[in-house]
């Protein structure tokens, strides 16, 4: 099995179609179990009290918000280097999912911040980086929408994704420098993974896996939709040509 077999859209659709319902089923099932476990069966944390329950949503969505972009970067590279058509469409399919994850991470983070820090928003490097990431998703999707020719759009967005990745990375470190320059007490930011005890860790891992499986399911589904869309356009163009000839 190699990814090149699945450069054939027909093969990809045939393989993926039976997987999608399973992936959704497993993802949603794990999510329900993980969230119920986290919500009802974990104790309150010493410092943060019951607000710690937000971790089961915040950390997985933030994790995926970043990794969705990484996946788009890899898919874009595969498309640019080896013209893997399905790969280009998968990058397009992942972008809205990644954007929604970014929004979830920002929203739950704001609620969490309001509860524990007493403020919805601080210009902390982490928070700011996510805001910038959101802008990159926005620009990426807008570029896809703006270009009518699908191959040109795939090429341009792929290069945009690659260049954007470099700048997103740079922005992250620039933001760390910047916030240190502004206010020295960056201790507001609680690093989630470092001080998570086992009680919270186990349901959190479950939720991480659940979000991951759901992400895969969504990307497969949306890629299949994009393939069908492309095929529709191609068939319509062919029919128009046939009509002209008659």
């Amino acid at each position, binding site marked *: 099995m190699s990814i090149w077999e699945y450069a054939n859209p027909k093969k990809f659709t045939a393989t993926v179609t039976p997987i999608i319902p399973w992936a959704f089923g497993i993802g949603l099932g794990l999510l329900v179990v993980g969230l119920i476990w986290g919500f009802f069966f974990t104790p309150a944390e010493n410092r943060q009290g019951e607000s710690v329950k937000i971790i089961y949503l915040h950390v997985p969505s933030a994790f995926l918000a970043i990794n969705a972009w990484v996946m788009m970067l890899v898919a874009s590279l595969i498309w640019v280097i080896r013209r893997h058509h399905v790969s280009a469409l998968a990058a397009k399919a992942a972008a809205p999912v990644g954007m929604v994850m970014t929004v979830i991470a920002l929203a739950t983070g704001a609620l969490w911040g309001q509860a524990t820090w007493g403020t919805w928003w601080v210009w902390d490097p982490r928070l700011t980086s996510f805001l910038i990431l959101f802008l990159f998703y926005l*620009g990426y999707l*807008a*570029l896809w929408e*703006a270009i009518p020719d699908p191959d040109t759009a795939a090429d*341009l967005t792929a290069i945009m994704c690659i260049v*954007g990745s470099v700048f997103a990375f740079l922005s992250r470190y620039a*933001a760390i420098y*910047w916030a240190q*320059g502004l206010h020295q007490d960056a201790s507001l930011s609680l690093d989630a993974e470092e001080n998570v005890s086992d009680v919270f860790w186990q349901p959190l891992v479950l939720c991480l896996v659940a979000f991951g499986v759901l992400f895969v399911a969504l990307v497969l589904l949306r890629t299949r939709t994009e393939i069908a869309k492309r095929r529709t356009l191609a068939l319509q163009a062919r029919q128009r040509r046939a009509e002209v000839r008659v």
Partner: protein
Amino acid sequence: MKAVFVRDLRLAFRAGGGFGLALAFFLIVVILVPFGVGPETAVLRRIAPGILWVAALLACLLSLDRIFALDFEDGSLPLLATAPVPLEGVVLAKAAAHWVVTGVPLACAAPALAFLLNMEGGAYLTLVMSLAIGTPALSMIGAFGAALTVGIKRGGLLLSLLVLPLYVPVLIFGASAVRRAADGLSVATPLLILGAITLVVVAVMPLAAAAVLRINLR
């Protein structure tokens, strides 16, 4: 390459070429800010470095779509692409011309506007230096954005959406250099990093911009 550079400069200085437009925009934004935040000198003095950098960045953005759009419309861009000069060189020359037309005047005019905002006296030199170091990167990144959106009708808004997030690192280091100077701190670190960003951008971005142009001209 030199011919492209000179030609772009001539076009810009000709009537309606847009020279001075960026400068006027810079002036207006900086004048509008006190109306927004109130006339207190202390407040304006504090935010002056940031305001000046953001305004300069927006003024730079204003004329970006002209870099390639006009040549694309009248068909000279495909000709340039088939010219013996590599397309990367053409991109670099055009970005350089954009910088001479916008970045240099902005850097020169910034102290006058800093005066209006009562900026701290020690920061003037750093302001000019940081703008002089940072604006080439702004022009080059902008040229990439302009190349991305060259085939899109009314792509101006999309261009700013794509380019502004890319401006974040330049803005952070540029403005922080001026802020540090205003606080009487050492400005070497942000200026050096700003210079590094500019050098890397000028070296690498022409490749990306030229690749994007080739796709758009296909």
